[in-house]
């Protein structure tokens, strides 16, 4: 999942970015409002964590423009402004969540997970596809009752595929959502990681869940696909 983080306090910004990266998110970090606005227009994020008092354009203005563009990216305001008026204003403008500084790290992670979950239409924090179970809260994967150990990248890829369950996901999509703008990547990397994932999730089990859609990309689905390539 790709997350936009806009925070002008350098140390807090870096800690946020580092922490979210370690959780498997691809993070684009910026320190002022104009840069955040530009990024929000050009990249399709899975979630945005915005400070309100940013130099240049403030968080409210960025959000307002996003919603005017009919962008459905979930936005969490992370801010020192805690008055009821501020919260109401933020939520009414279209923010999906509001967290006041200082905050607990675990709470921030849980709220981001909830936002992404809701954006992808999942009610609970567990995604089940056939006998594959992904516990989004704990970050654990089971298939047929057996735990499956994945690396952070593999888990991120699986999570993204699961959020687009039943839809075709192009390599470009995967690159956009799993790698931030600082990573040097080529689309081969996607194929390699799909291979790793398949080895752990599909290979040991009779039913294949990860399907190749020739000419387009990949799909995670419980149904059989017409063309299946290992």
């Amino acid at each position, binding site marked *: 999942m790709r997350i936009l983080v806009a925070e*002008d*306090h*350098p*140390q*807090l910004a*870096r*800690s*946020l970015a*580092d*922490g979210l990266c*370690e959780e498997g998110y691809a993070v684009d970090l910026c320190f*002022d409002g104009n840069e955040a606005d530009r990024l929000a227009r050009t990249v399709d994020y899975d979630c945005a964590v915005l400070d309100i*008092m940013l*130099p*240049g354009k403030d968080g409210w203005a960025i959000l307002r423009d996003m919603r005017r563009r009919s962008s459905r990216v979930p936005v969490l305001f992370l801010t*020192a*402004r805690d008055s009821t008026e501020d919260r109401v204003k933020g939520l009414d403008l279209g923010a999906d969540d509001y967290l*006041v*500084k*200082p*905050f*607990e*790290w*675990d709470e921030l992670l849980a709220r981001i997970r909830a936002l992404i979950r809701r954006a992808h239409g999942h009610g609970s924090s567990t995604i089940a596809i056939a006998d594959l179970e992904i516990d989004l809260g704990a970050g654990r994967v089971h298939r047929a009752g057996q735990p499956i150990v994945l690396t952070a990248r593999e888990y991120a890829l699986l999570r993204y595929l699961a959020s687009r369950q039943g839809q075709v996901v192009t390599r470009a999509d995967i690159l956009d959502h799993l790698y931030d703008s600082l990573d040097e990547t080529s689309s081969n990397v996607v194929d390699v990681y799909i291979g790793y994932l398949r080895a752990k999730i599909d290979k040991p089990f009779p039913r294949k869940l990860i399907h190749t859609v020739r000419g387009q990309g990949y799909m995670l689905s419980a149904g059989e696909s017409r063309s299946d390539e290992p």
Partner: protein
Amino acid sequence: MTRRIAIAILVTALVVLLLGAAAAYLATRAILLADLDESLMARATALLQLHGASGGERPGVPPEDRFILRNEQGQTLARPPIDPVSSEPPRVVSKGFVTLAGGGRLRSVTLDAALAPAAPGDPQRRVTLVYSTSADRFDRALRRLALSLIATCALAGLLTAAAAWRITRAALAPLHDTARTIGGIDERHLDRRVDCTELPPELRPMGEQLNQMLARLEEVFAQRRRFLADAAHELRTPVAALLTTLEVSLRRPRDAAALTTTLQNCLASARMLRRLVDALLSQARGEAPAPSAPQPVDVPALLRQCAALAEGIASGAGVQVTCSAPERLEAVLHADRLQSVVTGLLDNAVQYNRPGGRVELACGATDQGIWISVSDTGVGIPPDALPHVFEPFYRADPAANGGGGHLGLGLHLVKSQVDAMGGTCGVRSTLGAGTTFRIELPCVLAVAA
């Protein structure tokens, strides 16, 4: 106070009443006694006359009376004899009250009279008459008078006491209400005011002054609250940075290098927080009354000293600090406050300057005291930001927000100090060219330039 006023009224009234009653009593007694004595004298004299004392045989006829008795033909039958010798009136030897053994009192008069000679040629005889009459009626009448006077006084006293109390209470009621209103004012209820229309005209100025004082207090408390709220707010982001950095670091095992980096970052944040706390404390102290009295201060010397102290930071930023001051300017001021103000303005001028820029300190005398100016060749302040530069936590340059290290408190502290010295701060600025701060302080000049 009600009691004192009421008692004063009551005591005055009682004194007046008692004096009046006493006067009435004594006057009445004197009149009654004179009357009694007169009738006593008349009867005693009549008795003397009965026995041939001055005036001859004229039973029952007082000597001062004159009469002529004529018959039908106009002949005189009887008339008082004209006898100069025996027309000497009786002489009063003494008058007094006598108390009887069995109770009761007599009023007694002792007379010394001359009796007419039994025959012409006889020597004059002198007699002494002690004549008394009962003083009981006199005493009774006086007793009744005394009692009714006392009763009247007592009744009047009670009525006066009640009336005095009532009247005083009513007159002082507005003061009680005012006292209650003031008693109900604490830091949570500073918006209450005294109702001046309820006060008597003499007390209205006091009520108005009280209200003005309350308004000033309310404003000061409101300012303090705002400042505290702003300060708490400002602390949030640095604290969040500290917390998040530590939480993220602890989530996974880290190697020594990563931990060292984290610790250094946290140290930087903690130092920043310390600076904020120090600035807040300076602010609180700056607003407190000065502990000592003002002293004569050599102003140009103080400016040069501040410039020298700022030398290190200034040269690090590539900024030159110059001082242009008159030869001698000595004023009676708080030296540490003045130094804090000049240092604050100097720091500001160096921070917002450009490499190769200049800061100039200057001072002079005004007709009220002294002025001090600090000019820089820095980035300048936009016109819409100018009115706000002295507000706490205001930063005209938003890019310096957050971790940039600018707390936004420096100029606010300067203004607080200048206000505490009774002076004024002014600022002029041209974007891109520079800014000049000028403060004027009312003070006594020991030596003018």
